[in-house]
């Protein structure tokens, strides 16, 4: 047995757990009459995000998430859909990042982001049960209580509590991301999972603004054991506003010397038909890290890019 085979065979427990986890995820959605969909990995125009780079593929791009195609399905009248697929983001490689990773994305029509928080609580509990686990997650010597309801804290509250600057000041001085990573994230989801919600409007590219406070976007992120696990929006369905935000993001990309992407016109054309809805993307590899009690994302996938 060579070095490579030996390393692969040592991952057997983690790979089996991962497969069982994905089966449990499918069972959870199928039991609620969700439609499992598949959308193309290679697309002509990814959503322009200031800090996410797509991998070029024969004149088009590998998708960075399936959101544009899935929202077109919503527009066409598919109310509850989910997908488990590979996504690609250029240059993202670290202990918790892979340039090719597995995302679970699901959408519900007729609800806002609060319903997705309840979905998360039920999904993780259901996956834990499917793996024969109790309601307490043991991870790196910590015990994380999965009993709902989980903690809900706004971004402004979290910055006020944990960071030396307020969320809006941090954003204004271009220190939001740094403080999020250094001061806020280490404190999130330590004893039980937490939803960090209501981001400053500028940080919710495809999210609806809060009707009662348009300085905030209806976006949340789920954290367990300081690990960022999922990102959710109440979906923006205003095509004009969406086009304005895409233009702003494209402009920001140009100023940072990042690649330009074509405008996803078919998506914008169908956006006005998208019903009030909410959507969420959850990192399957990271969820596997939690259930497999691992700190490195490489431990829960068969091949890291460097092993190919």
């Amino acid at each position, binding site marked *: 047995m060579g070095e490579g085979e030996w390393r692969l065979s040592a991952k057997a427990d983690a790979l089996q757990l991962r497969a069982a986890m994905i089966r449990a995820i499918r069972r959870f959605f199928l039991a609620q009459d969700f439609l499992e969909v598949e959308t193309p990995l290679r697309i002509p125009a990814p959503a322009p995000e200031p*800090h996410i780079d797509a991998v070029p593929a024969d004149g088009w791009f590998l998708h960075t998430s399936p959101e544009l195609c899935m929202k077109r399905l919503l527009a066409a009248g598919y109310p509850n859909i989910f997908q488990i697929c590979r996504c690609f983001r250029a*240059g*993202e490689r*670290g202990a918790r990042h892979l340039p090719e990773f597995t995302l679970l994305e699901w959408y519900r029509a007729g609800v806002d982001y609060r319903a997705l928080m309840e979905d998360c609580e039920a999904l993780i509990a259901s996956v834990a049960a499917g793996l024969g686990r109790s309601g307490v997650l043991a991870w790196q010597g910590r015990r994380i209580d999965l009993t709902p309801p989980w903690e809900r804290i706004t971004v402004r509250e979290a910055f006020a509590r944990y960071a030396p600057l307020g969320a809006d000041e941090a954003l204004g001085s271009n220190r*939001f*991301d740094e403080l999020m990573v250094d001061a806020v994230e280490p404190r999130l989801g330590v004893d039980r999972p937490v939803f960090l919600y209501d981001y400053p409007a500028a*940080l919710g590219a495809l999210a609806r603004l809060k009707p009662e406070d348009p300085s905030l976007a209806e976006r949340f*992120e789920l954290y367990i054991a300081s690990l*960022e696990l999922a990102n959710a929006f109440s979906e923006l369905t205003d095509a004009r506003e969406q086009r304005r935000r895409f233009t702003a993001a494209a402009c920001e990309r140009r100023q*940072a010397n990042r690649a330009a992407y074509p405008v996803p016109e078919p998506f914008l054309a169908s956006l006005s038909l998208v019903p009030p809805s909410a959507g969420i993307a959850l990192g399957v590899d990271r969820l596997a890290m939690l259930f497999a009690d691992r700190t490195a994302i490489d431990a829960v996938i068969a091949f890291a890019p460097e092993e190919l």
Partner: protein
Amino acid sequence: MYTASDLRKGLRIKIESDPYIITEFNFVKPGKGQALYRCKLKNMINGNQFERTFRSVDVFEAADLQEKKMQYLYKEEGKYCFMDNQTYEQVFLSDEQVGEAKNFLLDNLEVEILFFEDRPLGISLPNFIEVTVTKADPWAKGDSVSGNTKPVTVQTGYVLQVPPFIEEGEKIRIDTRSGEYLTRVKG
């Protein structure tokens, strides 16, 4: 020039006129936010260490480092002298700069000296060297209590563990990266 996405453990960059080596590297990226490249850096001249977080817009100059083949001549007043056999240029390295390599510095050994802009910084040895054992306890045959290895001293003064059958005056091969015994060299 390097960009932040080139950063990795072991990369050597120039910051404010000094060469630094990245000793720890971590990529972090919050949510849909910007990528942050957390590095622990060590100054290759004075050994000072610090942590710094870079962003994707940061660019770096490569440290102008060159390795040159030189021969070890002698040690005098705490300085190790090396000579370029082509140009007869001589350079001196301190104890600190030579570090663990002093255990394997045989007279006339050919080594690589690392230079930063004409200034010698450190040394890299050949992976394997052959040395003579200068001090070894005799092998008590059949003595299984004393274990599988015994300590010996070699000509550089270095002490290491070897199999019990190695005797004084013999030549052995050492892996300079681990400092461990490899084989007996039949002379």
